[in-house]
């Protein structure tokens, strides 16, 4: 059984997506348990897989028994074992937390939504597990298409902003496909490990250089790296809460993983950092991304949209960290994939709780919210502290690695950008917290003397419990950072990077 984990990860959710859409015709109430079961199996397999990788080292799984490079192999090592676990656990928790909000916001469209949800997770897990460059493209499009469909179920401008996302997402995926095409022309192979073995004599070739740059740009579009970020804020803001809180923590992070995989496995760090000599400009781009993300977030008066701009800044953290070209920077980037997935999930679950109880999540709607939803706002404070980077929450530790990597590499601008963004995050989150804690409730009409009359109206328990688990996870991951780094990430980074 445990031999089959890599296949179960992808095939169980894929088949259950079909079963869910069929079950939706019979009885809508069947869909949720099937989805939970499917993602439960996926989470169980990915945790099992991570434990096996910790024991035995990298695992190669041949789909259908065909040997690579002819067949498609799933290749799981420390790096993607960790990312697989994060993706499947985040997706599972979010599914449980979102049940009520899906029923409220989507009404009779729950069955297709669950099918798309599971399909999206299939795609994400497949992207992370696969060892085949073209297979990655197909799974990328599965993720993207199910994401478009889910986000377009939102209200207001959702369809229009999803259409913009679709244009950009298609361009990104096509660029990636084009880059893979060039790699195929020069090496004749699509298997990542095989390509890596064939490439070194060809590093001087213009086609390899072109392939790398084109793949990189494609992945950047997909991860919303500034200035290619324009699609992200509107698409994520107007989508249904459950879709945003799945897509916002995972899709950009998985794309960062793809970039790191390209640097570390398909091309070697030697090629990416030394032969190309483009790491400095890319770190500068990341600096700009962090500054712009922070400033754009400052100008927002809407909680959810503010969070989407913070994602843009966080993408800058990870791209910059990965391109610092040293061990600390890469560790910080990989650790931040884990942390940022959890932080973003926590923040977006709070937004989805607020959306469940209130009309909207603009700042004006949030006045005095803490008296109405004290538990939700408690979790929000934990998420805020983590995004700002206060110990012992996990956000502090990845930022620590990123900053020490920046100092080692002599990239002081990146360090300044990280500190600046932390300061801006302080302003951003304390502004929200101030509105929620100290402003009188909106209905008081300005003469809110005396004790607040608003009774507590907290979100249901099925939404609160997963939220608390995630908030506790933020602290726990922070406390066990040492273990994660020494036992997992240390082995994920090749020895060549010092």
């Amino acid at each position, binding site marked *: 059984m445990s031999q089959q984990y890599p296949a179960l990860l992808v095939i169980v959710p894929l088949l259950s997506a079909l079963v869910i859409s069929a079950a939706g015709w019979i009885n809508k109430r069947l869909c949720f348990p099937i989805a939970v079961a499917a993602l439960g199996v996926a989470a169980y397999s990915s945790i099992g897989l991570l434990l096996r990788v910790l024991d035995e080292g990298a695992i190669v799984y041949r789909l259908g028994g065909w040997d690579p490079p002819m067949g498609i192999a799933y290749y799981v090592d420390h790096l993607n074992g960790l990312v697989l676990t994060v993706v499947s656990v985040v997706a599972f928790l979010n599914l449980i937390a979102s049940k009520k909000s899906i029923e409220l916001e989507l009404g009779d469209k729950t069955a297709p939504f669950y099918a798309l949800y599971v399909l999206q997770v299939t795609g994400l897990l497949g992207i992370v597990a696969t060892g085949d460059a073209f297979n990655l493209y197909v799974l990328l499009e599965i993720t993207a298409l199910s994401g478009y469909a889910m986000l377009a179920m939102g209200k207001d401008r959702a369809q229009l902003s999803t259409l913009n996302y*679709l244009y950009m997402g298609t361009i990104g995926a*096509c660029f990636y496909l084009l880059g893979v095409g060039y790699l*195929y022309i020069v090496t004749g192979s699509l298997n990542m490990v095989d390509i890596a073995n064939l490439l070194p004599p060809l590093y001087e070739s213009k086609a390899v250089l072109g392939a790398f740059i084109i793949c990189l740009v494609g992945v950047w579009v997909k991860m919303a790296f500034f200035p290619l970020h324009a699609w992200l804020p509107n698409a994520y803001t107007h989508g249904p809460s459950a879709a945003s809180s799945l897509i916002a923590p995972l899709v950009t992070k998985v794309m960062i993983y793809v970039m790191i995989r390209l640097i570390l496995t398909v091309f070697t760090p030697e090629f990416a950092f030394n032969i190309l000599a483009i790491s400095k400009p890319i770190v500068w781009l990341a600096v700009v991304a962090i500054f712009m993300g922070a400033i754009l977030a400052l100008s927002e008066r809407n909680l959810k949209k503010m969070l989407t701009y913070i994602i843009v800044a966080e993408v800058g953290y990870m791209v910059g960290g990965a391109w610092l070209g040293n061990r600390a920077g890469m560790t910080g980037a990989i650790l931040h994939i884990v942390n940022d997935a959890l932080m973003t999930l926590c923040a977006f679950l709070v937004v989805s709780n607020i959306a469940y109880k209130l009309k909207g999540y603009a700042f004006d709607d949030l006045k005095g919210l803490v008296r109405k939803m004290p538990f939700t706002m408690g979790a929000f404070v934990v998420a805020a502290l983590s995004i700002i980077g206060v110990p012992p929450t996990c956000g502090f530790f990845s930022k620590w690695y990123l900053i020490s990597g920046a100092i080692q590499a002599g990239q002081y601008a990146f360090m300044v950008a990280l500190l600046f963004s932390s300061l801006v995050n302080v302003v951003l989150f304390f502004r929200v917290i101030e509105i929620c804690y100290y402003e009188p409730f909106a209905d008081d009409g300005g003469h809110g003397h005396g004790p607040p009359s608003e009774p507590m109206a907290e979100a249901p328990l099925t939404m609160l419990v997963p939220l608390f688990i995630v908030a506790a996870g933020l602290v726990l991951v922070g406390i066990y950072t040492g273990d994660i780094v020494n036992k997992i990430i240390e082995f994920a980074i090749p020895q060549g990077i010092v």
Partner: protein
Amino acid sequence: MGDLIQMVVAKYNYWIYITLMMIGLYAMIAKNNLVKKIVGMNIFQTAIILFYVSTGAKRGATIPILEHGHGGHGAGAHMVHAADYINPLPHVLMLTAIVVSVATLGVALALAIRVYNRYDTLEEDEILAQIREK
């Protein structure tokens, strides 16, 4: 100049795909009508499909089907020269890419219909004007 012409002529398949890609990209950026943008997107995707398919082609090669493939032991066996056959792998990959591009086109057009139902127009500037008015 002569070198340039030779380069263009010798690798014309690449130039065609790049031209098509740029036409698609131009339509996506410059056109105001949502359906025209979607058409541009499809041209963009098709250009890459063309690129892949053209890389599999070889001069003087035939379709990759072995004529006496069965019972190929004993006297009937003969050597297979890869140069005699078109490389089938890029073509197979593109079957998948075509499916993906059709699916993307379908989703995009469905979204365009929803946008039209909501705003009664497909012109992007008119839609944005309507949003700004609110």
